[in-house]
């Protein structure tokens, strides 16, 4: 997967910098050609053609100017003329090769030998950049407004649908089709408001997925792959916020999600600290910074209490750090309460961990911490052990996140803006 990303970047680099590299290469080559005409003794006084050199210098200066002009033309990126979510040619190809996804076929034709493609539901798929493939053909590229419509369709009708199952299949499809949108965006050097709108929807999707598919087998959902792509989208989005003119009404929401997702990371924290004052003082960012600070200080009691104030999607963003938080709490308590007569009430511990007492007892067991028959925890620093690979199932301990989802549809989570979401969950 990583290789695919690299080749995407290669691709972008070639588009952006190819001319410049070629220019430098030419200069270098020209100079070395002059070198080889020198006498083998190493001295560099050698007969040369004055006229040739004069011309060369002039051509090089002209090359610089020509390159600049070319660059200006390239600034006006490749034209995009595909007005449908899937280019007609691709739809035809995939239909005849029977490579349509079940979400893309005309309902009722799924069981046909060659299901019929539905142009209102077919979406351009991701394809690896390859030599000889011209991805800049206008009829294959979707312009910004079509890209935004595509993403809205994917979120509203597919990811946010209550009738499509299983959600792993939904994820697979949306993940792939969003990747193709990203490709079109990169080729067209998309920036500004359209870019931001698309990225925001994409980020919400990946954050939600990181929670919803937690615990699924690796071959169906790999959290690391989801993470790699999510980080990329986040960085791009934050770049847009930084370099664009704005205003960006959702910036508060996404800077918060970004910090919670990357809890405890110095670069992420520093980035947020460098935001303008008015953003840092917004309630959600203040809360996220407080949670981040508690994480850095190791004050997980305070942290888990603050987490109660987060909304559902924010808790999804933070969810992958819950294991670390709870583990650290059990670890420091194993040291802090280490004594022969330690009898810490299980119920109290359950409250601190934001878990049911029975699950708390299970979690203690996973870390080698003894709980006696009177529901008392016998902390001991020598007893604490790291769980075996796969012994700890994060999903069992999800209640802190799941209880916030009550009444919220995935559509409400993914598509709507934060103010509306908090109203719903209250």
């Amino acid at each position, binding site marked *: 997967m990583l290789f695919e990303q690299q080749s995407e970047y290669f691709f972008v680099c070639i588009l952006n910098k190819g001319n410049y590299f070629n220019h430098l290469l030419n200069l270098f080559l020209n100079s070395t050609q*002059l070198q080889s005409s020198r006498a083998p003794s190493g001295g*560099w006084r050698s007969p040369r053609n004055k006229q040739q050199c004069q011309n060369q210098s002039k051509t*090089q200066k002209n090359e610089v100017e020509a390159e600049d002009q070319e660059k200006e033309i390239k600034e006006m990126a490749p034209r995009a003329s595909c007005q449908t979510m899937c280019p007609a040619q691709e739809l035809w190809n995939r239909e005849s090769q029977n490579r349509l996804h079940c979400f893309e076929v005309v309902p009722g034709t799924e069981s046909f030998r060659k299901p019929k493609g539905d142009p209102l539901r077919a979406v351009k798929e991701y394809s690896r950049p390859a030599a000889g493939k011209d991805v800049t053909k206008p009829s294959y590229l979707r312009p910004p407004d079509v890209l935004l419509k595509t993403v809205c369709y994917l979120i509203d009708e597919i990811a946010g649908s209550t009738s499509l199952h299983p959600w792993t299949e939904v994820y697979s499809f949306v993940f792939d089709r969003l990747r193709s949108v990203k490709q079109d965006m990169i080729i067209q050097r998309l920036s500004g408001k359209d870019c931001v709108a698309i990225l925001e929807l994409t980020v919400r999707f990946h954050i939600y997925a990181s929670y919803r598919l937690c615990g699924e087998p690796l071959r169906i959902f790999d959290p690391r792959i989801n993470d790699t792509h999510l980080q990329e989208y986040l960085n791009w989005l934050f770049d847009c916020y930084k*370099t664009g003119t704005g205003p960006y009404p959702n910036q508060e929401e996404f800077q918060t999600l970004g910090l919670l997702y990357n809890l405890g990371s*110095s670069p992420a924290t*520093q980035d947020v600290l460098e935001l303008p004052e008015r953003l840092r003082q917004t309630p959600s960012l203040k809360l996220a910074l407080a949670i981040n600070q508690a994480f850095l200080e190791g004050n997980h*009691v305070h942290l888990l209490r603050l987490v109660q104030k987060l909304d559902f999607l924010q808790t999804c963003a933070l969810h992958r750090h819950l294991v670390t938080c709870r583990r650290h709490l059990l670890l420091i308590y194993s040291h802090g309460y280490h*004594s022969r007569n330690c009898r810490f009430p299980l119920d109290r511990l359950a409250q601190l961990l934001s878990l049911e007492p029975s699950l708390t007892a299970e979690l203690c067991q996973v870390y080698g911490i003894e709980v006696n028959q009177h529901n008392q925890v016998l902390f001991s620093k020598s007893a604490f052990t790291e769980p075996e690979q796969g012994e700890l199932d994060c999903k069992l301990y999800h209640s802190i996140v799941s209880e916030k989802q009550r009444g919220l549809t995935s559509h409400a989570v993914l598509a709507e803006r934060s103010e509306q979401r908090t109203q719903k969950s209250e």
Partner: protein
Amino acid sequence: MAHITINQYLQQINQAIENHEGSFCAELLSFKHPHVANPRLQLASPEEKCQQILEPPYDEMVAAHLCTYAVANHDFVEAYKFQTLVVSFLRAFQSHKEENALPVMSAVTLDLRIFANNAEQQLQKKGKGQPGEMLEKAAEQLMSCFRVCASDRAGIDDSKKWGMMFLSNQLFKIYFKQINKLHLCKPLIRAIDSSNLKNEYSPAQKVTYKYYVGRKAMFDSDFKTEELLSFAFDRCHRSSQKNKRMILIYLLPVKMLLFQGHMPTHQLLRKYDLIQFADVTKAVEGNLLLLNEALSKHETFFIRCGIFLILEKLKIITYRNLFKKYLLLKTHQLPLDAFLVALRMMQVEDVDIDEVQCLLANLIYMGHIKGYISHQHQKLVVSKQNPFPPLSSVS
């Protein structure tokens, strides 16, 4: 210098090259040298003149350098373009023996970075171009010069490896402008660490190098940072007040975190105009309220320098010192309520007994307190010997 003709100038360069006077040659190609102000040298098309007197590739290099009219007109984007040409020609003859190369390379790459900086600012003001683009390109150029130097096989006296630290320092200055570029420092540091010239570079270069490597270590939470920054501070020339101040900004928080006995004196802070640290220093002795106030008052300064996060780490030490004061009551069993009262007096918001227990457990786990918490008795029981080990002994 300010009045010589173009012919005289070119003759001087030619002589410098023939006599292998690298440093003089470098001066004649540097924008710090007065010849840059000479209007007779500011030609739009100096190629012909240069070719008459100089051999390739110097002729084209100097021709590109002479397009200083661009700088005279403060068009740094243009200046940067021409400087790029100078650097690329430089690379062409770097691949064969030539002792003039290094001083010239130093002068020329320095100007490249400065122009890139200025060009960035100019573009930003006009709202054109991508931020960081010019610096990124400059970094690429410098990186290829670095590679040429690092892979040089000549004997130690003629080796281009002597140029590695200078180039690294230039690259650090570019990379440190953006947090997400810091990882690019790693290959440079690795290359220099594994070279046998590591300790032989000039003191000035070493000070700059250790300053940046020290800052990178700080960013990676690597405790080698104290050693590196201390070296830089001690060896930095007494007269470079500004540089010493810059080093102190990063050395102070690290020292405060690691060695509480090494708090900076008020004199030192005043001498280097770093009064912002005064309240923080005082607060760490156990006044949590003062610490929070100090951090908030100078927040902008600390964030801009990138030390806000490390200063917040001082909170743990402050808690430890605060709690230690309470144990001067010569008892080895303290009710948890006492700590709660202490924190409330420091105006710490919504803290309750559960959080007090968590804080204490953390301090015990980190080795700052020797003892245990008894939940049944709601007390902290500390060891009769040395309940608060000295900070320097705790990792």
